[in-house]
């Protein structure tokens, strides 16, 4: 669907209504000011201005940010070639799956413990597609335990698609992706049980993980599996880094999934954020230079928010 046309149609009416409300509001506030006679005005504090002019910096950064993200998303949708560097961990994933094939043992993939509306889970699912294509090609058994029904549906779709694309639809069965348990630790306990029984050669964790990260990674290690993790939960990264063989850290997970899927939304967002990061670095460096020469107070105060 044409993005510009859709946006135009969808937002013209509500934006107009909101603009009218805002105008009415302004008139309303103005009327209140006019009503205040000089006598009563002396008793109450003078009315504050309608707009918070001290928040211009937030307005500026929001407008710049929105424009950048929207432009990149549009370019991505238009199929423009946007470069993203290859993420090192992706090679490791393929190698680890290859090892499982050699050993004739299964691959275990967990797309995190969050619902499908979480972007980390979506990233996990798109990496699952890639892994499934490799296992389908070599006929390596794949196990994907999930915690939510919606993730189950999405996971089954992606894996089936991968098996069809790899030309091995017969190897696909519905139990590859299975619902295990809804409760966090019940899920973890069951998956730990699977690890100890089936002894997968490779465990891949891609998505949102919480306190169970260490329980999973330690059990997997006890079972002698090669482990690759990826999560954007900063508090869990140290455990994955310590207990796994390779870890995709934070935004690397999103970058990996954007790299694989070339999904315009992910790609556009990633490029836009990259652009913003560069801008922020430049702003920081200017600030450092100015303040080191004792000229920077006005500049630094531009960024005051509280």
């Amino acid at each position, binding site marked *: 669907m044409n993005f510009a046309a859709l946006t135009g149609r969808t937002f013209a009416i509500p934006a107009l209504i909101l603009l009218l409300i805002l105008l009415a509001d302004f008139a309303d506030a103005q009327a209140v000011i006019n009503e205040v006679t000089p006598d009563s005005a002396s008793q109450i504090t003078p009315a504050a201005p309608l707009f918070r002019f001290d*928040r211009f*910096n*937030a307005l500026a*950064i*929001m407008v710049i*940010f929105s424009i950048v993200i929207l432009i990149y998303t549009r370019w991505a949708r238009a199929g423009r070639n946007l*470069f*993203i*560097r290859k*993420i090192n961990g992706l090679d490791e994933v393929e190698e680890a799956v290859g090892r499982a094939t050699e050993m004739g043992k299964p691959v275990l993939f967990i797309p995190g413990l969050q619902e499908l*509306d979480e972007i980390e889970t979506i990233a996990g699912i798109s990496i699952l597609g890639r892994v499934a294509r490799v296992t389908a090609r070599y006929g390596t058994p794949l196990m994907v335990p999930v915690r939510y029904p919606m993730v189950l549906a999405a996971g089954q779709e992606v894996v089936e698609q991968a098996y069809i694309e790899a030309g091995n639809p017969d190897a696909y069965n519905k139990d590859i992706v299975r619902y295990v*348990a*809804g*409760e966090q*630790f*019940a899920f973890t*306990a069951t998956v*730990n*049980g699977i690890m100890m029984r089936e002894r997968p050669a490779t465990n891949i964790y891609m998505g949102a993980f919480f306190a169970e990260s260490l329980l999973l990674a330690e059990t997997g290690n006890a079972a002698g599996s090669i482990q690759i993790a990826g999560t954007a939960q900063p*508090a869990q*990264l*140290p*455990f994955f*880094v*310590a207990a796994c063989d390779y870890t995709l*850290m*934070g*935004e*690397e997970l999103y*970058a990996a999934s954007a790299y694989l899927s070339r999904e315009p939304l992910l790609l556009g967002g*990633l*490029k836009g954020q*990259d*652009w913003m*990061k*560069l801008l*922020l*670095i430049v*702003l*920081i*460096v200017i*600030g*450092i230079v100015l*303040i*080191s*020469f*004792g000229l*920077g107070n006005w*500049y*630094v105060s531009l*960024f*005051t*928010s*509280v």
Partner: protein
Amino acid sequence: MSLVDFLQTWIIAFFTLSLFSFLYKDNPFYKFAEHIFAGLSAGYYVGLIWHSVIIQQMVDPMLQDGRWWLIFPGILGAMMFSRFSKNYGWVSRLSLAFVMGNTAGIFLLSELHGKVLPQIQSTMLSVDLKQPIGDLVLSIIIIAGVITTLIFFYFSKEHKGLLGGAARVGIWFIMISFGAHFGYTVMARISLLIGQVQFLINDWIGGTLQALL
């Protein structure tokens, strides 16, 4: 220790030990405790939402203050349950959109205004050579750490040359931070175990011995 307290302590101890037994291996006691636990947690939500949301936020204001329009969020909330229907599942999107849109509106500004602005502002530190050496070193560590971390998570160029060097320094910084995180967190995990052990020894074993003697 009264009989009620005694039984109470033994019940807690039974479930605690049932769960700990998983450390040895999966077993029926563990499974039973885990299922009870899942049920109780779900039941807790019902009591909580019933009182704090349905009664306090909707029924009481509607009946006592005449704020009849609070029926609308109630309807929006009830529409969530259409998710369980195959044909009318889309209805739940309306309520979900209302909540998600609102959160998005708050986040778009709070993330930029409340996180990005103050965080970059406090990275603009002076590297003037006239300041005490300790402050200068700290400023340089912070500036280098922030910028190289941002560069490590920059995906639009291959990490080669100068950029590659900066990214490499970035990963060293990240590893120091993760090490600090790990070292710090050991305490968190052990704290929780200490809490349970204190209960088992003081209340359960201690209490039981006291009752028997």
